[in-house]
């Protein structure tokens, strides 16, 4: 059989963006070997950035194509997966910008770092479109194993070692539990591995208890990936021990991949028990919002504080997931998009401060405004945006989420979200106050000895570019939120299984009950975009 014919049958064009990333990965890996480690630091990051930009460009080109299943139904390149894959590719892109100087200063090889980071990206991107159990498992493990390696990348640092070991053991155990759930799902559906076929087979079956056990195992695996309480214990340890750029990637890219997995697997394979999984995720959302935001107050290390804040943020995102309406899914993905920029912006600032002073302690930020106004401004904007202060991007993200929740009647969740948002504003503002308000005599020692601002060393320019890009995106994405939200809405509307998840729920109050054939998502969409 000739190759071109086979390729057209498999519809391999759908994974061109991943192909671009894999090609870049190979170029970086072989190029570093051939040209030597010393010169690799100068060119590998830029090759990786070019490859990721190409990948995002290819994803944009695929936007208007009709969504098709490729690889015999294993991979779905619909608009939902395009948006999520772009989020992961972009998060890697910004992570690379901030990591060049960091890895260089730590004295490690940058070419290998890029290779592992790109393989994690490939895993995450495949996970966003995976529709088949084997594919889901392999791409999830590609992402996970690459993340373990990244966490332990500073191999002479015992803290990085310890974080990697904890992450690996907990991660491997949770993926084994997840896999056990998948094997039960395979058995219960009578030997199906495609998600839609599983759903069809399960709809006829009556083995409710077995299905619930499979559901619990699967949710345990997914919750580990998105760091939902009570599966969050690894998060603070890993975030504190791992290299900071890796933490930035884990908190955005890896988490987005986890949510992509949750959307696809739960809505598509478990429509029979939609009430139950929504109930479990409601509990996870409540616990995550409360524990993440409350424990963050007590932290003294900036990285640990952001670890707990990311747990809380995942709780907010889960609100959009559990209500199960079109607007909910759309606002959830919109929030992930906004969160990408504001969280990576905050991490860029932390890396910059750590590179100049060598510390992560919150108290050491005191009086920074006097010495470095740009860093202070950037960090303040990103933190305020994470807290949800208007008119920054985070505010609009939260508004859409809470509005979607309110419309769907999840009043308790939304009120809890508002209360915990207020708590989160407290600890974000505390850092801002520390930097801005302190008098010169209250400055911390490291800020007193702050080095002269110098953007010339290798890797500082990309960091500056990353800082400005995230800063601008955080500032104006709020004002430009309408086109972005429309884009995300289009992505969600065209996914059929999200509508079936919606239809299983009781119709919302705003729906005219006399015309049941009216497509429900359109009504809720127009309402939330008109906001």
């Amino acid at each position, binding site marked *: 059989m000739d190759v071109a014919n086979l390729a057209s049958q498999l519809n391999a064009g759908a994974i061109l963006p991943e192909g671009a990333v894999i090609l870049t990965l190979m170029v970086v890996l072989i190029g570093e070997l051939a040209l030597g480690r010393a010169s690799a630091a100068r060119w590998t990051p830029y090759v990786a950035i070019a490859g990721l930009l190409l990948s995002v460009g290819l994803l944009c080109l695929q936007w208007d194509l009709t969504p098709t299943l490729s690889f015999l139904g294993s991979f779905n390149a619909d608009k939902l997966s395009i948006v999520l894959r772009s989020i992961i590719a972009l998060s890697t892109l910004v992570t690379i910008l901030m990591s060049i100087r960091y890895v260089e200063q730590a004295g490690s090889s940058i070419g290998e770092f890029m290779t592992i980071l790109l393989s994690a990206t490939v895993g995450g991107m495949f996970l966003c479109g995976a529709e088949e*159990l084997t594919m889901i498992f*392999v791409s999830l493990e590609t992402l996970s194993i690459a993340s373990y390696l990244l966490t332990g990348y500073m191999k002479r*640092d015992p*803290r990085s070692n310890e974080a990697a*070991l904890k992450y*690996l053991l907990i991660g491997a155990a949770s993926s084994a539990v997840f896999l056990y759930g998948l094997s039960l799902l*395979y*058995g219960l559906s009578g*030997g199906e591995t495609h998600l839609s076929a599983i759903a069809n087979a399960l709809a006829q079956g009556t083995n409710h208890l077995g299905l619930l056990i499979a559901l619990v195992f699967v949710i345990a695996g997914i919750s580990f990936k998105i760091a939902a309480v009570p599966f969050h214990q690894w998060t603070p340890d890993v975030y504190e021990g791992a290299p900071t750029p890796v933490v930035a990637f884990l908190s955005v890219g890896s988490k987005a991949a986890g949510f992509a997995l949750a959307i696809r697997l739960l809505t598509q394979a478990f429509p029979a028990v939609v009430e139950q999984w929504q109930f479990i995720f409601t509990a996870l959302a409540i616990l995550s919002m409360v524990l993440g935001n409350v424990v963050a107050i007590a932290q003294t290390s900036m990285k640990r504080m952001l670890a707990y804040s990311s747990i809380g943020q995942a709780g907010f995102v889960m609100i959009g997931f559990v209500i199960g309406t079109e607007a909910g899914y759309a606002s959830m993905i919109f929030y992930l998009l906004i969160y990408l920029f504001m969280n990576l912006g905050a991490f860029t600032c932390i890396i910059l401060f750590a590179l100049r002073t060598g510390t992560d302690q919150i108290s050491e930020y005191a009086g920074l405004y006097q010495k470095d106004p740009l860093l202070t401004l950037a960090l303040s904007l990103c933190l305020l945006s994470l807290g949800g202060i208007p008119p920054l991007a985070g505010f609009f993200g939260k508004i859409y989420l809470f509005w979607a929740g309110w419309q769907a009647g999840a009043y308790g969740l939304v009120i809890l979200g508002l209360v915990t948002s207020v708590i989160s504003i407290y600890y974000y503002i505390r850092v801002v106050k520390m930097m801005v308000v302190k008098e010169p005599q209250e400055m911390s020692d490291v800020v007193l000895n702050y080095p002269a601002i110098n953007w010339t060393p290798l890797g500082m320019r990309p960091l500056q570019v990353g800082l400005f890009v995230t800063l601008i995106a955080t500032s104006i994405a709020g004002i430009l939120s309408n086109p972005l939200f429309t884009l995300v809405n289009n992505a969600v509307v065209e996914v059929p299984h999200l509508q079936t998840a919606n239809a299983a729920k009781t119709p919302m109050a705003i729906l005219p009950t006399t015309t049941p054939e009216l497509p429900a998502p359109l009504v809720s969409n127009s309402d939330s975009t008109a906001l």
Partner: protein
Amino acid sequence: MPLEFFLLLAAALFCIGIYGLITSRNAVRVLMSVELLLNSVNINLVAFSNFLDRQNINGQVFTVFVITVAAAEAAVGLAIILAIYRNRDTVDMEQFNLLKW
């Protein structure tokens, strides 16, 4: 032999794996427990595949992937344990307490 026997064997192996995971102090033993978990999944998949899905044998194909990924995971795990042993001269889980919450 009925399908239930295989499922019970897999479930028992899974429970032993979880028990080992929780109680072991040696990091290598924890890694071995994870392998037990993955192998219990393999038994499950092969049993289901043999009883329910004889045409496509999706489960057996899945098992090959699981074994491959398990090997990769064990390699990475041993590498990390080696790195930590070089720095700390121990693989005792109770000694790894630099990161506290």
